């Protein structure tokens, strides 16, 4: 492990700046937003999973007392086939607009068709029932393999498969095919003494954030649009709304309210453009709130998938070749995270011969959205189950086989990049050394499983401004929505530079008019990239403060030294002044000091995790209890260890839910039958043991303090780890998620 530097603030656990307001209920969320003259919007959603819209008649709704405006896709600018670039790749603008309000077809149950603004939410709801929509109902396509069949009903008549730069002639539900190849897989499999090939199926799962989507929009008389909302990125809301409404970004201001969870699900916009359309039509501010059912049926979950993994190894455990076939459900419009799945699937290993095929396939379900390491958990369920089976067949310890094949600096990933300094081996070693791994676990129907995971993490743009206050504190202005304690983790990086306590930093997450461009809180980038910008902004403050001290002492700047929060003179003069005291003298030494940092760093460091889980299976009911869980992860550098642990625990818990019970259950018509937290079974605290989070620190050379992203990789290993533990407990390999009690009963031959 790299040498540990001494830090004053980094690595400590100060109370988060937003904590008290949140636990006392004073923090303001989107639903709290109030304004004089506020109207309430409600979206009418499709009752069919797949249908052509013949006609929409809004006249009865418009005539209903209290209704101030009704909008449909006709109120959106004609998108045609324009392509919008939203920073995360080009998106077909018609697809983007149709997902906001369907124009010609509805492609999932819950697809927005029209919206009403009225003087009360109840009137808006009632008026929605007065909108007459005539549909021609079409057969739904609800499963990825069915959608890929040649005779499957088509969702989009003009969608043609693109594959390695070529576009097919015939329309298809397969939007794209990607392939990554390394070495000679055929030769690799020929060298193997053992080859294991298995099929896997995973269900559609939701991020399960507690706070439903919300948006309030208001147009000023001069055409300035303001949107108050819950989002992972105010700037991406601005971009998406600008594209969808074909409205200049300079005329849109997005104000991020506090956010009650996102996990990737609050990047795409749904009701924000709708609120804007209603506001425009009525000339009043309009607030639109989703219900929980709206959230399940009308926003993006992470995809169901069909995965085939084949791996070969020599009898001493060296993996010689790996092959993966990943078919992901995009939902109604292209854009499944099959790319990231393909990037991550074999990344914990150093394998010479690899081929990975990925397919992005449309089905009649909501368009998928990111969810914590999107694509990687699906893929790892397959690969980590197969690695476990190979280890078992070769009678090699599952951690040993992972160590034997572990990815290291200089290895090439199948999709191209060469690993910089990574902590795969250190994470595995720490897992092996943890007492959990060697604790006795031999009881009947008890089992232990391990699995690893990788997530590449991203950089992207961030901006931070620091204003120095005369009392020795600083105001830190940032554009990153704080989902997991990033006000603290960003503030701490500035505090470390300036030698002040974290409590002397006042972080504010502000609107798009008040800070430089900042990409979404996603990709585990915020503590890394916005923290990096805070570091740069603090460096500028430090440089300017040094200049002030030099001015004060009438010495050259080179003769001023700054250490431990104290400026001192090093040319023989006995001068010393604290950061705080110098702050009080800014007025006399030249005026206010503002520092700014803007970054687009390319050095995001990939993160590895290895999880160990103990389960007990009730053989009569098929119910799996999690008895003990240890999650080990390379954080690079844990700026605030409590929030790193929180991220690790949260990811593991969401993975446990994904593994055991969470799934969208559809009937034959394509209606989700469990669109509530009652029947969409996320684990509660009563279903979970304490999740032991173990932080490994292999600093990322691409960040001044060594930060790697931490939020996503912990959801990658749990599904396979639990499947492997179930196998250890009852001798049955589960290859379909969730591993719910009925599926276990079937697999055990009990029903």
């Amino acid at each position, binding site marked *: 492990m790299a040498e540990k530097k001494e830090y004053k603030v980094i690595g400590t656990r100060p109370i988060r700046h937003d904590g008290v307001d949140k636990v006392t209920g004073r923090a303001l969320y989107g639903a709290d937003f109030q304004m004089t003259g506020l109207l309430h919007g409600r979206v009418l959603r499709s009752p069919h999973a797949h249908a052509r819209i013949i006609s929409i008649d809004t006249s009865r709704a418009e005539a209903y007392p209290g209704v101030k405006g009704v909008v449909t896709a006709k109120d959106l600018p004609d998108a045609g086939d324009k392509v919008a670039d939203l920073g995360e790749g080009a998106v077909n603008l018609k697809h983007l607009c149709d997902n906001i309000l369907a124009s010609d077809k509805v492609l999932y149950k819950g697809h927005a068709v029209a919206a009403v603004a009225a003087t009360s939410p*109840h009137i808006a*709801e*009632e008026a929605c029932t007065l909108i007459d929509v005539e549909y021609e109902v079409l057969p739904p396509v609800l499963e990825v393999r069915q959608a890929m069949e040649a005779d499957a009903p088509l969702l989009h008549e003009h969608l043609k498969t693109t594959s390695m730069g070529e576009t097919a002639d015939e329309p298809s539900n397969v939007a794209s095919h990607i392939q990554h190849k390394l070495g000679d897989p055929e030769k690799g499999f020929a060298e193997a003494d053992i080859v294991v090939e298995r099929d896997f199926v995973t269900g559609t799962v939701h991020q399960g954030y507690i706070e439903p989507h919300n948006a309030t929009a208001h147009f000023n008389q001069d055409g300035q649009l303001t949107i108050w909302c819950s989002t992972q990125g105010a700037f991406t809301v601005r971009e998406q709304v600008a594209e969808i409404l074909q409205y200049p970004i300079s005329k849109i201001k997005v104000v991020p309210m506090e956010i009650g969870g996102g996990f990737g699900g609050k990047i795409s916009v749904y009701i924000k453009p709708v609120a804007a359309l209603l506001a425009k039509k009525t000339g009043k501010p309009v607030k639109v709130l989703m219900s929980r059912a709206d959230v399940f049926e009308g926003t993006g979950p992470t995809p169901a998938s069909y995965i085939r993994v084949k791996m070969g190894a020599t009898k001493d455990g060296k993996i010689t070749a790996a092959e993966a076939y990943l078919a992901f459900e995009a939902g109604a419009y292209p854009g499944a995270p099959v790319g990231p799945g393909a990037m991550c699937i074999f990344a914990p290993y150093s394998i010479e011969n690899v081929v990975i095929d990925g397919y992005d396939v449309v089905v009649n379900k909501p368009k998928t959205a990111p969810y914590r390491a999107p694509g990687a958990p699906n893929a790892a369920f397959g690969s980590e189950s197969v690695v476990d089976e190979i280890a078992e067949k070769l009678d090699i310890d599952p951690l040993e086989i992972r160590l034997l094949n572990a990815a290291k600096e200089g290895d090439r990933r199948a999709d191209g990049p060469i690993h910089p300094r990574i902590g795969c081996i250190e994470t595995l070693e720490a897992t092996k050394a943890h007492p959990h791994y060697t604790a006795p676990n031999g009881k009947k129907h008890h089992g232990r499983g391990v699995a690893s995971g990788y997530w590449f993490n991203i950089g992207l743009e961030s901006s931070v401004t620091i204003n120095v206050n005369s009392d020795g504190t600083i105001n830190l202005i940032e554009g990153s929505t704080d989902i997991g304690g990033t006000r603290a983790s960003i503030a701490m990086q500035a505090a470390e530079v300036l030698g002040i306590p974290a409590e002397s930093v006042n972080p504010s997450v502000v609107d798009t008019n008040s800070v430089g461009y900042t990409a979404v809180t996603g990709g585990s980038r915020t503590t890394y990239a916005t923290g990096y910008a805070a570091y740069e902004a603090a460096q500028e403050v430090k440089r300017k403060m040094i200049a002030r001290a030099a001015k004060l002492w009438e010495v050259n700047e080179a003769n001023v030294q700054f250490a431990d929060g104290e400026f001192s003179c090093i040319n023989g003069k006995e001068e010393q002044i604290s950061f705080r005291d110098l702050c009080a003298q800014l007025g006399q030494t030249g005026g206010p000091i503002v520092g700014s940092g803007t970054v687009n760093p390319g050095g995001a460091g990939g993160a590895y995790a290895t999880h160990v889980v103990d389960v007990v299976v009730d053989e*009569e*009911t*098929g*119910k799996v209890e999690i008895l003990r869980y240890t999650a080990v992860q390379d954080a690079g550098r844990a700026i605030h260890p409590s929030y790193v642990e929180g991220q690790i625990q949260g990811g593991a818990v969401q993975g446990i839910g994904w593994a*055991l*019970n969470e799934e969208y*259950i559809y009937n034959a018509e394509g209606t989700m*039958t*469990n669109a509530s937290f*009652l*029947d969409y*079974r996320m*684990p*509660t605290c*009563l*279903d979970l043991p304490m999740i032991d989070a173990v932080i490994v620190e292999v600093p990322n050379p691409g960040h001044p303090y060594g930060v790697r992203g931490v939020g996503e990789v912990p959801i990658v290993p749990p599904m396979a780890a639990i499947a492997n533990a179930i196998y250890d407990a009852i001798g049955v390999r589960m290859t379909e998620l969730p591993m*719910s*009690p*009925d599926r276990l*009963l079937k697999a055990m031959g*009990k*029903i």
Partner: protein
Amino acid sequence: MQDFSYVAAKTVPEAVALLDEKGEKARILAGGTDLIVQVREARRDVDLMIDVKSIPAVNVLDYNADTGLTLGAAVECYKIYAVDAICDAYPSLIDATTIIGGTAIQGRAGVGGNLCNASPAADGIPPLIVLNATCVIAGPNGERELPVEQFCTAPGQTALEKGEMLVSLKVPAPASNSSSFYLRFIPRNEMDIAVVGAGASVTLDDAKQTIVSARIALAAVAPTPLFAEEASALLAGREISDAAIDEAAQAAQAIARPISDMRGTAEQRTHLVGVLTRRALNGAIQRVQDAS
């Protein structure tokens, strides 16, 4: 949510008169943990909510070792399990009242409301069936009584006629050497609706080796909670054995007519009826045998 009227009735006759006048579109409001959600989600069309929480007769909670329990229809779960004597006498009722919703819900929800909501999956109903409880019903023509197992007629439907309301439940005093047990299967450990529920009561002989009589009830495997009459009768006079319990479990499975839905499949439910019936019977027997 649609507008509706609200009346806090002070007496049973007042509530009955309102029910009789408004018919289908009037509903009794007690805890409201089902009703308010149903109205909010437009699953029930209600013009008038008649709050009965201030009517003394529906708030009675009276236990007497000789005459048994009178449980007012609006008595909340938390009040029931706060009485030690009731916990000792009717453990299956306590098994159920402590798992209906969470702690907060148990402060509002009651067993009477659970019965009137007539969910096939209601946790509160199988214990009432195995405890031989009777419904006391008030209506325009006075009071009548009905065994609990005859109260639910279909999902959300009850034997209450126009103008009738449930006033209370009467539960006989437990026989000596008897006890009861209720459990449900849910994929999580809380905050879930029964995939299958099973309740059992047993009365043993003085040696605690032979079953004098038993009652078994099932939830979530038919349009209404079921009294497994044949399965229960099979046990009368039988010495306690795995074979006897298996036979009863199989007889219980034979009357299950489950559906497949988002909470579980029909095969899973039929299988679980066997598992849970055995566990409920063994649990009740164990309680008798553990009692000094």
